[in-house]
């Protein structure tokens, strides 16, 4: 199993078996973009997100 924790909210994340290094995934809990840094061992990090003009 390719498991990791979200660096933002600590959610448990299970990577798809076909996951690749460099792929961008979305945390199912807090919604941040995450980049797969390595698969062995599994390492993910926050990916840059476009800052939207939101709300106001």
């Amino acid at each position: 199993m390719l498991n990791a924790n979200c660096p933002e909210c600590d959610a448990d994340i299970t990577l798809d078996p076909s996951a690749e290094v460099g792929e961008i995934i979305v945390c199912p809990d807090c919604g941040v973009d995450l980049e797969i840094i390595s698969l062995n061992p599994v390492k993910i990090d926050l990916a840059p997100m476009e800052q939207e003009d939101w709300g106001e």
Partner: protein
Amino acid sequence: MTTVSIIGGSGYGGGELLRLLLSHPNVEVKQATSRSHLGEYVYQVHPNLRKRTQIKFSDPFNLETVDVLFLAQPHGQAQHNIEQLVPLADKIIDLSADFRLRSAEDYQKWYGEPHAAPGWLEKFVYGLPELHRGEIAGARYVSGVGCNATASNLALLPLVKAGLIDLSAPVIVEIKLGSSESGVEGNTGSLHAERANVIRTFSAFGHRHTAEVMQELGLTDISLTMTAVDLVRGVLATAHARVKPGVGQKDLWKAYRAVATENPFVRVVKEQRGIYRVPEPKILSGSNYADIGFDLDESNGHVVSMCAIDNLMKGAAGTAVQCMNLMLGLDETTGLEFAGLHPL
């Protein structure tokens, strides 16, 4: 089928109960009472129920026995005739404020008059499943919940349950609420000319629902401020508190995630993109969900915790039906699966 009746079926809470119970797969609605609409078809008062029922409003003094009796009368009535109502049903769920508080002294303090049946206060369980699921499941008598109290209790529940609040600082809850909270009777302030377009802080502190939050969460230094906004349905509670030293975002995520995992109608809304990043009552109309969210200023420990609900659903009739499900041993989500509307 479980038989149910509603005393006080012509108000907004009663109408919402009818909407839910008429579609409930395990329930048969026997009677809905209304003195002011006696003999009228239910759909003549609740037009959304046209072609859903041919029930006419009955006389509250001519009730048949049922399995579950819902009381949806104005506050202050059930406490005067609870002894007469008990023989009519195995289980009673009272949506009014009459049996929410455990202490007669607290009732007199917050409602300004002595309780007429103080011996009955301890027989009722406070009807918020997120706080009393096990007790409700074994109860014969369950109270309703205050809508603003529910939004406040659920906004603060993750913080209180995880013991994250620094109790040396006050907790302030700012509540924005819609016009249906005023009930079907209304007053001059409910007139469209006066109510439309308002942002009106009508109760800076001392609102009666404060008592339910103090009682249920054990917080003593807490204030609720009520602001009427231009909505029909909906409540948003925005709570301000200080967390204990060292508490960070991940601790909060853990606490909020735990509450959402334990409770089928609680959802964490804290998104990074899109329009709906925080809890908003708009998308909850007609649904029983409570959306909670938070943010933390880690430089000073100031936490902002939010909860949005539909006041007539999670804040009243929806939670009452959720309690009925628990009392009957049903899945607590039965008949409450509506996801709300978007766009609205």
